[in-house]
């Protein structure tokens, strides 16, 4: 599903990610570990085609990311669900509208949107605040909106950039559950974190980065 083959992507000559190779299967949840500045977000942004690949090949669901044309980037991105480190919620839209956005971009019918958004909203525990605006939410609730928005389309590839960053251990664990549930329907999930104690009990594979290079797999 996600396949890195000697991928290098850089901001400047020696900042970025270098010569990365790893493979994440369908239905697998993999953690991306490493200290701050190690390049975790960069890995996810490369998959998201936010940063160009300078060397190597990267396949997402069989598609060579380096070969996706500029004008096909929107179509490519729609196949991926992304939870952003900084949430990226739209401030003048309610929780419902924020979660609905990926579906509206696809042109899904109103009724279907309503069903799907309420469904996922309930799963992530946002039922009560579904009509609130982002400014009326706590950090943890914003995080959940961001997750719900990534999951609402049931994408085959889910990228989560520190989705538990600001949350207490209990809530973090719930969010991991949500991502794990997503793998049950075949999604490949790559989640970055530096919270080792949180992921340790899950006994999942993890990829460790340091200064843009692979440490252990």
């Amino acid at each position, binding site marked *: 599903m996600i396949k890195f083959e000697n991928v290098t992507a850089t901001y400047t000559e020696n900042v970025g990610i270098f010569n990365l190779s790893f493979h994440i299967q369908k239905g697998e949840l993999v953690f991306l570990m490493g200290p701050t500045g190690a390049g975790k977000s960069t890995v996810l942004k490369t998959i998201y085609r936010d940063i160009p690949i300078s060397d190597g090949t990267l396949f997402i669901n069989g598609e060579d990311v380096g070969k996706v044309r500029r004008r096909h980037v*929107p*179509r490519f991105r*729609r196949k991926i669900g*992304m939870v952003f480190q900084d949430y*990226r*919620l*739209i*401030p003048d839209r309610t929780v419902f509208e924020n979660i609905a956005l990926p579906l509206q*971009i696809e042109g899904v019918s109103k009724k279907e949107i309503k069903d799907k958004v309420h469904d996922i909203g309930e799963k992530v525990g946002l039922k009560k605040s579904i009509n609130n605006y982002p400014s009326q939410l706590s950090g943890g609730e914003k995080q959940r909106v961001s997750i719900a928005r990534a999951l609402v389309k049931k994408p085959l590839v889910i990228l989560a950039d520190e989705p538990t960053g600001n949350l207490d251990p209990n809530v973090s664990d719930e969010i991991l559950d949500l991502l794990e549930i997503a793998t049950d329907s075949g999604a490949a999930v790559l989640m970055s974190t530096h919270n080792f104690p949180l992921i340790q009990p899950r006994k999942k594979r993890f990829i460790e980065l340091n200064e843009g290079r692979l440490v252990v797999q």
Partner: protein
Amino acid sequence: MITKLLFLLSESFRGLFRAKLPAAISSITIGIALVIFSLAYFSYVNLLGYSYKFKSKYRIEVFFHNDLNTEEARDLFNTILILDGIEQGDFIDKKKASVLFKSYFHEDINEIIGENPLPMGGRYDIALDNRNSNQMHRIVREIRHLEGVDVASYQQGIISRVDSIVENILGISMAMGIAIFIISVILVSNTIRLIIHAKQETIETMHLLGATNSFIRFPFVVEGIIQGILGAGISLLILFLMRSLQTYLLDPLIKLPLVEPANLIAYNFIFGLLLALIGSFRGISKYLPK
């Protein structure tokens, strides 16, 4: 496809209501630009109208030699009549000449001199395309070369002055029109850019979620169209008020036979939309990834 369109349309209206103040500013900017535009166009049409009216009085006067008999004079008159650039003419026989004389000098020439010494001749109107000093000069020269013509003349000084005034009006209004248009486009696109600037992050997020440029642009362009229509409405309202004021205040003092340019309403809407469309395209293109 239809659901997407409906969604985008509702987005556009929400955009307007969310950013009421900037939307109002942008509509008013368009409105004011259109008022200035309309007034310039209005003055231009009126000045041109006056100049046409004035030019319709352009004439060439011809006096024939006194030894021509009436038949020969008529022939000569007709020869001139079919010259290039002559629209129509009046044949002036001796009797008519004395009537004209009387109307100018309030004296009867027959009584003064005892006979009528006035020459026969013609008075010619000029065809529309030839109502300028160059053409009239050419026609007069042609007439002077004809056998039997004594004097042929036109109001040379005035005509060349009017010519240069009309040319200036044309040039100045053209330059002003272009200048006003460019300034309005810049004003409008900057106002719209302000609206869009506030939504920069939203645009970025939409893009990260896989929205295409046209999907992102659509609501802004529809907003622009609405602002253009509102702007045209504002402009027409102001123009209407101005006209009422003019009728109310000026008409009792001076009667200006002002011409209302045809299609002013249509032009307001067309230019309002044009301004808004160019403005919103220019405004948003800066914020869309290439």
